[in-house]
């Protein structure tokens, strides 16, 4: 009875919600965890890497912002060319991001060391 009641309440509230547009792969919870405990930003990076790889393999569109968020994690760890690659993917997938992604990529190219980059 109680279970039915809760199920009905959930159905009621979600009744009008349209189907989701994207598979987020747990991005919001992983981002929350990385803010809660900065040592978890590695877990966020691994999660985004695995999720994006799976989506790319399946040919499914990656949710807005995810390529760029992974790119920023790369940039913060010093992996500049990998960061630029992700920013370029974000720009290709989402034209609205073009100005910001181009600015980030230009900044990387301007400051990138020729050799000895941390991967």
């Amino acid at each position, binding site marked *: 009875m109680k279970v039915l*009641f809760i199920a009905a309440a959930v159905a009621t509230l979600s009744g009008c919600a349209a189907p989701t547009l994207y598979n987020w792969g747990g991005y919001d919870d992983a981002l929350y965890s990385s803010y809660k405990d900065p040592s978890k930003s590695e877990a966020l990076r691994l999660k985004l890497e695995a999720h994006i790889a799976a989506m790319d393999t399946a040919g499914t569109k990656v949710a807005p912002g995810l390529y760029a968020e992974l790119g920023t994690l790369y940039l913060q760890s010093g992996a500049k060319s990998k960061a630029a690659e992700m920013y370029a993917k974000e720009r290709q997938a989402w034209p609205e991001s073009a100005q910001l992604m181009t600015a980030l990529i230009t900044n990387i190219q301007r400051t990138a060391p020729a050799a000895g980059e941390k991967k």
Partner: protein
Amino acid sequence: MKLAAIFFSCLLLAGCAVPVKKDMSAFAVAAPRSILVVPTINKSLDVDAPNYVLAALPVPVAEKGFYVFPVNTTKFVLEQEGYYEGERIHQEPTPVLAKMFGADAVLYVTINRWDAQFALFTTVVTVDFDYRMVAKDGTELWKENKKLQYQPQNNTSGSPMAILVGAVINAALTRAAPNYMPLTKQANQEVFLLSPNAIPNGPYRKTAQ
């Protein structure tokens, strides 16, 4: 049980037919495609709340059909430019922020409450947020407030919302520290997706339907 079933089917039918109360004409004119979610202002006593709330914002706004600028990348870029505090960022004119990122609109969120009041037998968890969306030309497009409270040991209200929120949150509250995220996500869901005053669908939601 039968009564409850009828009650819920009425809600189901009524839920989609509620007329839009707020004037959304400015939103329709601006027709933003991309939304910059900037770091939040914190008026609560919990110093961690701004980041936690920020993490819960992009999914519901993007699911509404907008391009949402990556919030952690936005935060990083703003810090590079010398903007660390939500208060400082919210003071900056919207056209300046929008131009910096190439965004059509900026979403500002203020955390009014994010607290748990402990009594002998009950705990009341409260979140209260102000939401405000402003177009790149400075026109205010939409604003909303959402306050949600949860009392895990008090099931006397019996309203469907209280039962749902209770169901969503129960697991989280078995921990020693209250987890605000289910309430925060619920607030965002209601404000952006379920409320009759929710923002209109963005371009990606339109093309998907």
